[in-house]
């Protein structure tokens, strides 16, 4: 498949590696990751941006990869759940915490939960408020991730097994 009016070559970085897939303009980042680049960690749940199973980090920010057209990502840096852990076999602290806390049942939502939590922790450290943050809090000061904050900030990740209590504990472990 080559570039034509309905296909384009898209240079981008995925988990630190330069890639250059030729994509159908209709392909989402999720489809390109799973079908063309062999990275099946990000999951297709609803495919409408409602469940969060497809969450990845683009330029360090968490996004729903099912709603991002791959063709629009020229030059961007994508991190999937496969790229979170440092080289050498160790797990990322959030992956470790999910295992320790048994924060899943079927595991289908887990890669999205973990990528979303990585993004949410960074947002809170950068002083970004959430819907449940006290409006009188200092603008820009790091936000403490209480259980209410974790629940609100991860509300875009649905777990049909209902493992939420342990997911909250796992995220809490990493932020303490």
């Amino acid at each position, binding site marked *: 498949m080559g570039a034509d009016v309905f296909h384009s070559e898209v240079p981008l970085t995925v988990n630190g590696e330069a890639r250059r897939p030729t994509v159908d303009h209709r392909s989402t980042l999720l489809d390109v990751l799973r079908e063309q680049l062999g990275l099946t960690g990000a999951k297709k749940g609803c495919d409408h941006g409602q469940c969060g199973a497809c969450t990845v980090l683009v330029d360090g920010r968490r996004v729903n990869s099912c709603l991002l057209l791959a063709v629009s990502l020229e030059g961007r840096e994508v991190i999937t759940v496969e790229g979170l852990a440092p080289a050498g076999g160790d797990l990322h602290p959030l992956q470790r915490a999910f295992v320790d806390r048994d924060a899943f049942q079927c595991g289908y939502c887990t890669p999205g939960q973990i990528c979303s939590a990585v993004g949410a922790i960074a947002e809170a450290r950068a002083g970004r*408020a959430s819907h449940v943050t006290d409006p009188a809090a200092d603008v820009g000061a790091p936000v403490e991730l209480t259980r209410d904050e974790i629940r609100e900030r991860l*509300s875009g990740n649905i777990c049909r097994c209902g493992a939420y209590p342990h997911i909250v504990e796992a995220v809490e472990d990493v932020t303490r």
Partner: protein
Amino acid sequence: MKSFRYLRAHSVEEATAAHAGRPGSRYLGGGTNLVDLMKMGVERPRTLIDVSGLPLDAVEELPDGSVRAGAAVRNSDLAAHPLVRDRYPVLAQALLSGASGQLRNAATTGGNLLQRTRCPYFQDLAKPCNKREPGTGCGAREGVHRDHAVLGHSPQCIATHPSDMAVALAALDAQVELHGAHGRRTVPAADFHRLPGDRPDLDTEIAPGELITGVRLPAATAGLPSAYRKARDRASYAFALASVAVVLDVDGSLVRDVRIAFGGLAHRPWRALRAERALVGGPVTEEAFGRAVDAELAAAEPLPDNAFKVPLARGIACDVLRRLSTAPTAA
């Protein structure tokens, strides 16, 4: 999904010229609604013109004291900006009450204004919908309409506008900046969205090919006590059943000025001008708040399954007015 061409615009002029030259074009911002509608077959563009990388990503103070947010500013960045959090808390609160963290990181200011209704009949090609396909009828009026409009609807359409941000902009007297093939213009945010009437296919006053380049937040409403309250079926990540944005200016025991806009009740953010007129110059009392809000909601024409929205809207509006009027200083 139908195949489409993809162009990346590098300037506003390039974007509008490309749109004018290509029938069936759509501008692509964050894509959180448009891409979804394309998957459902509701939108079938022949060309996508990507405007997400245009240099419209700044939030800045202008010499006249107003604040301008570029159309490509992401919802999460707008909510977190110190100028917005300090001066327009109602806008930050509205943004943070909408969608999820992932969606707010992608969705843009311009795209938020142009998102389509989440009416299930609009999103289902197998159902009649005058908004999606004029003349086919409205499935919701006799069907499932618990989430639908109670104010300003028409026989053709009872859809609501889903944005939280737009409700805050309407209450702040913000302006929407538009750039088209024939030049620039600004439209008050409160007038940007339409009532359905007999043209429910038209959500807004935007002309074909016009591009939103930014929104302007006026100096007049900067720093006033303001707040957003949203009632929904879940504690997080759900569209509003009813919401309210209030900007209140109190002088001692009298209302000097007040701006109120409702969300979730109509085809557009519903600026409550009747309630505002009833309150300005009058006493800051719960009785006055209740009477004014009742005067506004007297125009409601609820459907069999959404009459609950009227007392719900009354409750949150009166509560926000009371809280803002008793706050020690600017909220």
